[in-house]
Protein backbone atom coordinates (compact mmCIF):
# COMPACT_ATOMS: atom_id res chain seq x y z
CA UNK A 1 0.00 0.00 0.00
CA UNK A 2 3.04 2.21 0.30
CA UNK A 3 3.55 2.42 -3.44
CA UNK A 4 3.12 5.88 -4.82
CA UNK A 5 4.95 7.62 -1.99
CA UNK A 6 8.21 9.25 -2.92
CA UNK A 7 11.30 7.10 -2.55
CA UNK A 8 13.27 7.46 0.68
CA UNK A 9 16.19 9.87 0.71
CA UNK A 10 19.58 8.56 -0.30
CA UNK A 11 21.92 8.13 2.64
CA UNK A 12 25.41 9.59 2.58
CA UNK A 13 26.61 6.67 4.65
CA UNK A 14 28.57 5.14 1.75
CA UNK A 15 31.32 7.78 2.06
CA UNK A 16 31.75 7.14 5.75
CA UNK A 17 31.40 3.42 5.31
CA UNK A 18 34.14 3.34 2.69
CA UNK A 19 36.44 5.34 4.99
CA UNK A 20 35.47 3.04 7.85
CA UNK A 21 36.29 0.01 5.75
CA UNK A 22 39.61 1.33 4.55
CA UNK A 23 40.63 2.30 8.06
CA UNK A 24 39.42 -0.97 9.45
CA UNK A 25 41.44 -2.95 6.96
CA UNK A 26 44.55 -0.86 7.51
CA UNK A 27 44.32 -1.12 11.28
CA UNK A 28 43.56 -4.83 11.14
CA UNK A 29 46.65 -5.45 9.05
CA UNK A 30 49.12 -3.03 10.65
CA UNK A 31 47.53 -1.82 13.87
CA UNK A 32 48.97 -4.42 16.23
CA UNK A 33 52.49 -4.06 14.86
CA UNK A 34 52.37 -0.25 14.90
CA UNK A 35 51.13 -0.11 18.48
CA UNK A 36 53.77 -2.59 19.52
CA UNK A 37 56.60 -0.74 17.79
CA UNK A 38 55.81 2.83 18.82
CA UNK A 39 54.10 2.20 22.12
CA UNK A 40 55.98 -0.75 23.61
CA UNK A 41 59.12 -1.79 21.77
CA UNK A 42 60.54 1.69 21.20
CA UNK A 43 59.92 3.02 24.73
CA UNK A 44 61.30 -0.16 26.29
CA UNK A 45 64.13 -0.42 23.79
CA UNK A 46 63.39 -4.00 22.86
CA UNK A 47 63.31 -5.80 19.51
CA UNK A 48 64.04 -2.68 17.48
CA UNK A 49 67.10 -0.38 17.35
CA UNK A 50 66.99 2.24 20.09
CA UNK A 51 67.36 5.11 17.65
CA UNK A 52 64.34 4.15 15.55
CA UNK A 53 62.27 6.99 16.94
CA UNK A 54 65.14 9.47 17.20
CA UNK A 55 64.32 12.98 16.10
CA UNK A 56 66.45 13.01 12.94
CA UNK A 57 65.16 9.70 11.69
CA UNK A 58 61.51 10.50 12.27
CA UNK A 59 61.99 14.00 10.84
CA UNK A 60 63.53 12.54 7.73
CA UNK A 61 60.67 10.10 7.40
CA UNK A 62 58.06 12.81 7.78
CA UNK A 63 59.75 15.07 5.28
CA UNK A 64 59.85 12.45 2.57
CA UNK A 65 56.67 12.56 0.50
CA UNK A 66 56.11 8.84 0.90
CA UNK A 67 56.60 8.86 4.66
CA UNK A 68 54.43 11.94 4.96
CA UNK A 69 51.59 10.34 2.99
CA UNK A 70 51.90 7.14 4.96
CA UNK A 71 51.63 8.89 8.31
CA UNK A 72 48.71 10.95 7.10
CA UNK A 73 46.82 7.97 5.72
CA UNK A 74 47.34 5.99 8.92
CA UNK A 75 46.16 8.77 11.21
CA UNK A 76 43.24 9.87 9.06
CA UNK A 77 41.87 6.44 8.19
CA UNK A 78 42.25 5.17 11.75
CA UNK A 79 40.35 8.22 12.92
CA UNK A 80 37.56 7.83 10.37
CA UNK A 81 37.27 4.12 11.03
CA UNK A 82 36.93 4.78 14.74
CA UNK A 83 34.55 7.70 14.34
CA UNK A 84 32.11 5.71 12.22
CA UNK A 85 32.11 2.75 14.56
CA UNK A 86 31.75 4.89 17.65
CA UNK A 87 28.82 6.74 16.13
CA UNK A 88 27.03 3.43 15.71
CA UNK A 89 28.07 2.39 19.20
CA UNK A 90 26.41 5.47 20.62
CA UNK A 91 23.28 4.37 18.82
CA UNK A 92 23.75 0.86 20.20
CA UNK A 93 23.90 2.35 23.69
CA UNK A 94 20.54 3.96 23.13
CA UNK A 95 21.42 7.47 21.99
CA UNK A 96 19.54 8.95 19.10
CA UNK A 97 21.82 9.71 16.20
CA UNK A 98 21.35 13.34 15.28
CA UNK A 99 23.46 16.30 14.21
CA UNK A 100 25.11 16.51 17.64
CA UNK A 101 26.32 12.92 17.75
CA UNK A 102 27.44 13.11 14.15
CA UNK A 103 29.36 16.29 14.89
CA UNK A 104 30.99 14.67 17.91
CA UNK A 105 32.19 11.60 16.01
CA UNK A 106 32.88 12.81 12.50
CA UNK A 107 34.04 16.17 13.93
CA UNK A 108 36.69 14.41 16.00
CA UNK A 109 37.89 12.52 12.95
CA UNK A 110 37.96 15.74 10.93
CA UNK A 111 39.94 17.43 13.67
CA UNK A 112 42.56 14.69 13.79
CA UNK A 113 42.75 14.70 10.01
CA UNK A 114 43.23 18.47 9.85
CA UNK A 115 45.71 18.67 12.72
CA UNK A 116 47.86 15.85 11.38
CA UNK A 117 47.72 17.33 7.88
CA UNK A 118 48.72 20.73 9.20
CA UNK A 119 51.57 19.26 11.25
CA UNK A 120 52.86 17.22 8.35
CA UNK A 121 52.67 20.16 5.98
CA UNK A 122 54.44 22.38 8.51
CA UNK A 123 57.29 19.86 8.61
CA UNK A 124 58.00 20.69 4.97
CA UNK A 125 59.54 18.54 2.28
Amino acid at each position, binding site marked *: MSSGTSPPARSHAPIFWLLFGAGG*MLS*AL*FGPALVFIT*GIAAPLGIVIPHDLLSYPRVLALSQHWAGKSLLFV*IVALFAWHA*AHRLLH*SLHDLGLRIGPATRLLCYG*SASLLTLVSAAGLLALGF
Partner: protein
Amino acid sequence: MSGAPAVRRPYYRRMGRWWQRDPFFRRYMWREATALAVLAYALVLTLGIVCLALGEAAWQVWLAALRSPASLALHAALLAAMVLHTKTWFEIMPKTMPMIFVGERRLAATTITRCGWAAAAIATLALLALAAGWRP
Protein backbone atom coordinates in the same frame (compact mmCIF):
# COMPACT_ATOMS: atom_id res chain seq x y z
CA MET B 1 -8.80 0.18 11.52
CA SER B 2 -12.06 0.47 13.44
CA GLY B 3 -11.86 0.88 17.16
CA ALA B 4 -11.69 -1.93 19.64
CA PRO B 5 -8.47 -0.80 21.24
CA ALA B 6 -8.79 -3.06 24.25
CA VAL B 7 -8.56 -6.12 22.01
CA ARG B 8 -5.82 -5.09 19.65
CA ARG B 9 -3.19 -3.54 21.84
CA PRO B 10 0.32 -4.64 20.82
CA TYR B 11 2.84 -4.58 23.62
CA TYR B 12 6.26 -3.09 22.87
CA ARG B 13 9.15 -4.39 24.95
CA ARG B 14 12.03 -2.07 25.80
CA MET B 15 15.56 -2.74 24.59
CA GLY B 16 17.09 -1.99 28.00
CA ARG B 17 20.63 -3.32 28.32
CA TRP B 18 20.13 -5.56 25.33
CA TRP B 19 23.79 -6.42 24.94
CA GLN B 20 23.69 -8.33 28.21
CA ARG B 21 21.00 -10.59 26.81
CA ASP B 22 23.22 -12.82 24.74
CA PRO B 23 26.93 -13.70 24.73
CA PHE B 24 26.94 -12.99 21.01
CA PHE B 25 25.91 -9.42 21.67
CA ARG B 26 28.56 -9.03 24.39
CA ARG B 27 31.24 -10.13 21.93
CA TYR B 28 29.83 -7.69 19.41
CA MET B 29 30.09 -4.81 21.87
CA TRP B 30 33.71 -5.70 22.65
CA ARG B 31 34.38 -5.76 18.91
CA GLU B 32 32.86 -2.33 18.46
CA ALA B 33 34.76 -1.03 21.48
CA THR B 34 38.06 -1.70 19.70
CA ALA B 35 37.29 1.53 17.83
CA LEU B 36 38.21 3.38 21.03
CA ALA B 37 41.70 1.90 20.78
CA VAL B 38 42.01 2.80 17.13
CA LEU B 39 40.91 6.34 17.91
CA ALA B 40 43.28 6.59 20.87
CA TYR B 41 46.17 5.44 18.76
CA ALA B 42 45.32 7.95 16.03
CA LEU B 43 45.37 10.60 18.74
CA VAL B 44 48.77 9.44 20.03
CA LEU B 45 50.18 9.62 16.50
CA THR B 46 48.63 13.04 15.89
CA LEU B 47 50.20 14.35 19.06
CA GLY B 48 53.50 12.88 17.89
CA ILE B 49 53.20 14.70 14.57
CA VAL B 50 52.37 17.95 16.32
CA CYS B 51 55.36 17.53 18.66
CA LEU B 52 57.60 16.71 15.74
CA ALA B 53 56.47 19.85 13.95
CA LEU B 54 57.13 21.90 17.08
CA GLY B 55 60.77 20.85 17.11
CA GLU B 56 63.17 18.46 18.79
CA ALA B 57 62.42 19.53 22.37
CA ALA B 58 58.74 18.84 21.96
CA TRP B 59 59.55 15.54 20.26
CA GLN B 60 61.60 14.49 23.27
CA VAL B 61 58.67 15.30 25.54
CA TRP B 62 56.48 13.04 23.43
CA LEU B 63 59.05 10.25 23.57
CA ALA B 64 59.39 10.65 27.33
CA ALA B 65 55.65 10.46 27.69
CA LEU B 66 55.67 7.22 25.72
CA ARG B 67 58.11 5.77 28.24
CA SER B 68 55.91 6.53 31.22
CA PRO B 69 54.33 3.53 32.96
CA ALA B 70 50.89 4.94 32.26
CA SER B 71 51.64 5.07 28.54
CA LEU B 72 53.07 1.57 28.57
CA ALA B 73 49.98 0.28 30.30
CA LEU B 74 47.80 2.15 27.84
CA HIS B 75 49.67 0.73 24.87
CA ALA B 76 49.48 -2.78 26.26
CA ALA B 77 45.72 -2.33 26.38
CA LEU B 78 45.72 -0.80 22.89
CA LEU B 79 47.73 -3.76 21.60
CA ALA B 80 45.22 -6.22 23.04
CA ALA B 81 42.38 -4.26 21.50
CA MET B 82 44.13 -4.09 18.13
CA VAL B 83 44.64 -7.84 18.13
CA LEU B 84 40.95 -8.30 18.94
CA HIS B 85 40.14 -5.90 16.12
CA THR B 86 42.28 -7.90 13.68
CA LYS B 87 40.66 -11.15 14.78
CA THR B 88 37.08 -9.88 14.50
CA TRP B 89 37.65 -7.83 11.37
CA PHE B 90 38.58 -10.87 9.38
CA GLU B 91 35.91 -12.98 11.02
CA ILE B 92 33.19 -10.71 9.66
CA MET B 93 34.98 -10.08 6.36
CA PRO B 94 33.48 -13.04 4.44
CA LYS B 95 30.04 -11.54 5.06
CA THR B 96 31.06 -8.22 3.53
CA MET B 97 32.28 -9.40 0.17
CA PRO B 98 30.63 -10.96 -2.88
CA MET B 99 30.74 -14.71 -3.33
CA ILE B 100 34.12 -15.84 -4.58
CA PHE B 101 34.41 -18.87 -6.78
CA VAL B 102 37.57 -20.84 -7.43
CA GLY B 103 36.68 -22.89 -10.46
CA GLU B 104 33.31 -24.46 -9.70
CA ARG B 105 33.53 -24.27 -5.93
CA ARG B 106 32.56 -21.36 -3.75
CA LEU B 107 35.29 -20.21 -1.40
CA ALA B 108 34.35 -21.05 2.19
CA ALA B 109 33.98 -18.26 4.74
CA THR B 110 36.57 -19.86 7.00
CA THR B 111 39.09 -19.84 4.16
CA ILE B 112 38.60 -16.11 3.64
CA THR B 113 38.98 -15.44 7.35
CA ARG B 114 42.16 -17.49 7.56
CA CYS B 115 43.59 -15.67 4.53
CA GLY B 116 42.90 -12.38 6.32
CA TRP B 117 44.63 -13.54 9.46
CA ALA B 118 47.57 -14.79 7.45
CA ALA B 119 47.82 -11.44 5.66
CA ALA B 120 47.80 -9.65 9.02
CA ALA B 121 50.52 -11.96 10.33
CA ILE B 122 52.68 -11.32 7.28
CA ALA B 123 52.11 -7.55 7.53
CA THR B 124 53.06 -7.63 11.21
CA LEU B 125 56.23 -9.59 10.61
CA ALA B 126 57.21 -7.38 7.69
CA LEU B 127 56.70 -4.21 9.70
CA LEU B 128 58.65 -5.61 12.64
CA ALA B 129 61.46 -6.68 10.36
CA LEU B 130 61.61 -3.26 8.73
CA ALA B 131 61.63 -1.60 12.14
CA ALA B 132 64.33 -3.97 13.34
CA GLY B 133 66.55 -2.80 10.54
CA TRP B 134 66.13 -5.50 7.94
CA ARG B 135 66.19 -4.09 4.43
CA PRO B 136 64.98 -6.00 1.41
